[in-house]
């Protein structure tokens, strides 16, 4: 009786904690895999948008693909990838982000600094390098 009550309590606790982390909307694993694939898309806008989505989803499963995308040829993609790594707050990203502090590009260095600060901080806002990635294609009056 006591044991089953404990199990029930533990189960409820897990449910509460996971819903508290916003996992009610957790996407299927196939979505994360496909977005990780999209980081290798031929179109830079698609790659950047995929990095943004992965930063929103915050799945550990995407870390390796994001680390690889740090070598993207497009600087806007690299900035968005760094932003995503900062949001996911994985310790696995620290070495690569520390290396990015020496990037030739000012904005990449700044993004890397902010991402590292984010990983070491306990919360709060974090600036997105591309604050409005939603290109609502067209609400059209005329």
């Amino acid at each position, binding site marked *: 009786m006591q044991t089953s009550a404990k199990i029930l309590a533990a189960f409820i606790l897990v449910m509460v904690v996971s819903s508290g982390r916003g996992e009610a909307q957790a996407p299927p694993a*196939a*979505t994360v895999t496909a977005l990780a694939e999209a980081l290798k*898309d031929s*179109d830079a806008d*698609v790659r950047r948008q995929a990095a943004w989505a992965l930063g929103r989803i915050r799945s550990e499963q995407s870390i390796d693909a994001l680390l690889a995308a740090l070598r993207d040829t497009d600087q806007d993609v690299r900035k968005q990838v760094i932003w995503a790594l900062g949001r996911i707050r994985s310790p696995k990203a620290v070495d690569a982000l520390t290396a990015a502090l020496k990037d030739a590009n000012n904005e990449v260095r700044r993004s890397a600094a902010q991402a590292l600060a984010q990983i070491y901080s306990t919360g709060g806002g974090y600036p997105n390098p591309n604050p409005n990635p939603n290109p*609502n294609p067209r609400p059209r009056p005329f």
Partner: protein
Amino acid sequence: MNSITLRRLHVTAASCLTALCIAVPIGHAQQSTPSAKQLSTVIDMLRSSDPVVRVGVLCMRQIFDSNATALIPTLIELLNDAEPVSPEVCREDHRRWWGEEQPVTPGQEAARALVHIGIASFDPLVKALENTGATARRNAAWALGALDDQRAVAPLFASLRDTDPAVREQASWALGALDDSRAVQPLIGALRDASSAVRRQAAWALGAIDDATAVDALVAALKDSDARVREQSAWALGAIGDGRASPGLTLALKDGESRVRKQAAWALGAIAD
């Protein structure tokens, strides 16, 4: 910032040349009901054979306030007027925001003037949805969307079945702008319209209304033959933010068109939080 200011000055100068200077006496009458003489001057210019004069007067918003209801019949007559003039004739803010440089027509500007006059235009505009001219019907549909009165929803359903695709497209827009959930089912029907422009606008409207009952139909529209429709449907699904769309959007990451893949990636991120 500087270039915007310069452009505004330039455009203001253009309006002045065409209309402001002609209509100065009427400008003084804006606080009260205009006199019969002032009205007939305006009506004469609205019926000018020169489209620049017609549009020039129509762009003077201060004339078309709630005291100008006597002008409504003349404005309704102008709704079908599709003679294009340069956008510089009319200083119009939204065009600058959207970066469009398309010509303006007296019919469009008459629709704006009717919206500016306000609710007294409502019944004449509903009647104009049955006008014989397709341009007039389209401009009336736009005006009813912009007028933002929910009573327009039912009349606009009939416009979704108009014979002219441009009218159906504008009616879809208007229903999205009115943001009324009664429009969801008719708009789901419009996702199967023969015209891709209508399907796209219906997808936008469903995203704007943001009602989860549209999710399945929008997921189906991710397989539309037209890339713009697929892109707009992906946007709408992101705007609605329902997790049931994830599998369909995940497939759309493999779409042949990069604009669709990009919008699908955005939508998946938008759904995540």
